[in-house]
């Protein structure tokens, strides 16, 4: 069961400069663990102490996972996951 993950510019160097990668996972947490096996270092840029980093947005099929079940959100084959850093500041 393959999920497509779209990566932002700042994370592409961790994934051989690819813009989109494929991975498996039954939940978002599971998917990110699997991605980190292939592309070490990716996970720590997205997850911190068991939650998604404050300044990173993750979407499943265009839905912000903060409005789903966060890292426990379930995934099905063919889903599209987008990772985007927040554009924010003070």
């Amino acid at each position, binding site marked *: 069961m393959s999920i497509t993950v779209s990566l932002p510019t700042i994370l592409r160097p961790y994934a051989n400069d690819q813009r989109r990668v494929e991975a498996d996972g039954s939940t978002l947490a599971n998917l990110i663990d699997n991605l980190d096996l292939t592309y070490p270092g990716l996970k720590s840029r997205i997850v911190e102490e068991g939650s998604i980093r404050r300044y990173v947005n993750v979407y499943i099929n*265009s839905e912000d996972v903060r409005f789903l079940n966060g890292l426990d959100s379930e995934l099905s084959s063919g889903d599209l996951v987008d990772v*985007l850093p927040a554009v924010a500041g003070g």
Partner: protein
Amino acid sequence: MTLRISQQLVDEIVAHARQDHPDEACGVVAGPIGSDAPTRFIPMINAARSPNFYEFDSTDLLRLYREMDSNDEDPIVIYHSHTHTEAYPSRTDINYASEPNAHYVLVSTRETGNDDGPYEFRSFRIVDGEVTEETIEVTA
């Protein structure tokens, strides 16, 4: 390092900052990938609606990046205003900066608020927590 930007885009960014004062205004100027040329002005809503914080709404953010993707565009300029302090990146701006290829433009409306008059308009690169101010060349 230099930001080359048209007078019209400068005017649009400043007008947006004045309009949203005393809250911070924010947005992007997109341009063709790899061109370093800002062309398409995209004012965004500050979801924080705050005088000392700005954040693109997460749904708007995804839509914006999808749109730029399908147009083969990059965010060439990411701008926001400071309404009470100088046009220099704050610690929060530096922590959140995640587009190493973008020109981070800051406008300060502290002098004139919603009105016409002098303003500060400065541009920076923010890479790995390092801020470097750059020159601005305004074109016709």
